[in-house]
């Protein structure tokens, strides 16, 4: 059975930001299931069906990955590199959502083919509005890449 809405993978280690993002998505009636990975290793486990996600059907990939950069275990840029290196996830829309102000992160994010790079607004209302627009853009307006199929 094909679920009506594909999932969103939220890779976020800060519980406050996680709660806020979930709230903003719900408030805007974006009904996609949100899978939360709290470090880089968990994110890759979900995408590749390993670790606690062993056996997950990896033909089903999220419609959007919201990726923080500063993460325990494996950082966001390393996660992105692994996503782009694997045929199953190469075309996944990945939006970097970060507080990082470092030019290095911006340059590396794009060099590793992030689809978009967004600075997390610090102010509550602005953060909610940013998540709303990100959700609308990637879940409603953007045409997702075709589903990966095993050759």
């Amino acid at each position, binding site marked *: 059975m094909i679920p009506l809405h594909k999932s969103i993978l939220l890779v976020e280690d800060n519980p406050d930001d996680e709660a806020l993002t979930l709230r903003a998505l719900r408030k805007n009636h974006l009904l996609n299931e949100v899978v939360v990975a709290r470090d880089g290793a968990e994110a890759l486990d979900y995408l590749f069906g390993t670790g606690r996600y062993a056996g997950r059907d990896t033909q089903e990939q999220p419609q959007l990955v919201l990726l923080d950069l500063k993460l325990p275990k494996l950082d966001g840029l390393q996660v992105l590199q692994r996503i782009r290196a694997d045929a199953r996830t190469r*075309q996944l829309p990945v939006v970097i959502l970060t507080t990082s102000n470092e030019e290095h992160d*911006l340059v590396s994010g*794009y060099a590793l083919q992030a689809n*978009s790079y967004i600075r997390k607004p610090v102010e509550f209302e602005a953060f909610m509005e940013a998540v709303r*627009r*990100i959700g609308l*853009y990637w879940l409603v307006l953007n*045409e997702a890449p*075709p589903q990966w199929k095993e050759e």
Partner: protein
Amino acid sequence: MEGRVMANQAPVLLVEDNPDDEALALRALKKNHIPNEVVVARDGVEALDYLFGTGRFAGRDLRKAPPVVLLDLKLPKIDGLEVLRRLRADPRTHTQPVVILTTSNEYRDLHTSYALHANSYIRKPVDFNEFTQMLGEVAHYWLSLNEPPPPAPAA
């Protein structure tokens, strides 16, 4: 930081060969209060000339890269996918944000666009009001929410 503000304010490049669609897009951007200048390229060659500062755009300051290129696929001379391929092959433009804006619903176009690292793929709605609203959302996303890549260092 100043450089980034500049990048956001640089002209948007609209690559569109159909005069009706061009007029519609310009109207939609205006209606959505997009402050950026819009440069229109009417075929693939003109788009590449603008982005690489050649032909009639010889000498253009390439550090003022468009915050986003809105790229149609079916274009005279050089088609949209070839334009994208050339942008990705050149270090000056390989991270240039590109949104495919097309009526095509062919699997091959969608797949190839993402394989060539299009940042996003949007199907043009046929309805005028839907088109206006869509283009407003797209423009606001790439002009005020997304952080564009910093300009490539001068060669």
